[in-house]
């Protein structure tokens, strides 16, 4: 049987949206897929050496439950529905939301982004970064982890064109 191929385009640079590309890539690799991820635009944040700056923003995100990761069960169950107008004027709101999200992630036995990312690399998931966006955003290759290839869209299509699954995330 020919090896199946998964091609992913990762375009988001927030803590929440860092998960889908790495979860799907590492799982597919475990199932025997050949996997490549093309990081472009804000997705480049996911291959930076330091990803501790990734944040989640509840602002303008009505799908995001705002629950506390500590306290008694009744307290954890409360959904803190804070209006956008209020969120936007509280300094550090995103930082607080991000810390709470990180606590929730740890409490639920969900892997961290650096952990999932190295599991991908161990499983030979290939990371491609969009050279055009690297220049556009004024990044330097030294900002990124080792093992990333800097390419253009044409190189991505070389793999994506033969892939069984191609996802835009």
């Amino acid at each position: 049987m020919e090896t199946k191929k998964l091609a992913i385009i990762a375009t988001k640079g927030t803590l929440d949206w860092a998960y889908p590309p790495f979860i799907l890539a590492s799982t597919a690799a475990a199932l025997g897929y050949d996997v490549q991820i093309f990081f472009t635009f804000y997705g480049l944040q996911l291959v930076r050496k330091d990803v501790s700056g990734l944040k989640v923003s509840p602002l303008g995100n009505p799908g995001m439950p705002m629950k506390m990761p500590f306290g008694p069960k009744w307290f954890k169950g409360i959904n803190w529905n804070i209006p956008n107008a209020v969120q936007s004027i509280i300094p550090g709101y995103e930082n607080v939301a991000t810390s709470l999200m990180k606590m929730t992630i740890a409490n639920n036995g969900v892997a961290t982004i650096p952990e999932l990312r190295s599991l991908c690399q161990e499983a030979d998931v290939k990371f491609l970064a969009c050279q055009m966006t690297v220049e556009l955003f004024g990044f330097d290759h030294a900002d990124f982890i080792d093992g990333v290839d800097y390419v253009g869209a044409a190189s991505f299509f070389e793999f994506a064109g033969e892939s069984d699954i191609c996802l835009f995330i």
Partner: protein
Amino acid sequence: MEFNKELDARGLNCPLPILRTKKALAEMASGEILKVLATDPGSVKDMQAFAKQTGNDLVNSAEAGGEYTFFMKKK
């Protein structure tokens, strides 16, 4: 049931139980059996899907008090 190796994936969530299973199997010989302990309810279907797609044999699985036990025979 007899097994050659045990993997404790309790407290871990998707996709870690599958990734750890894959890693543990990689270090084993064909025909050997890996016992996996997990608490992720999603792992029940995921272990079946993993076995089906990788050709390894899920010879037995059980649930007791929110804890799942799987026996995976390496291809």
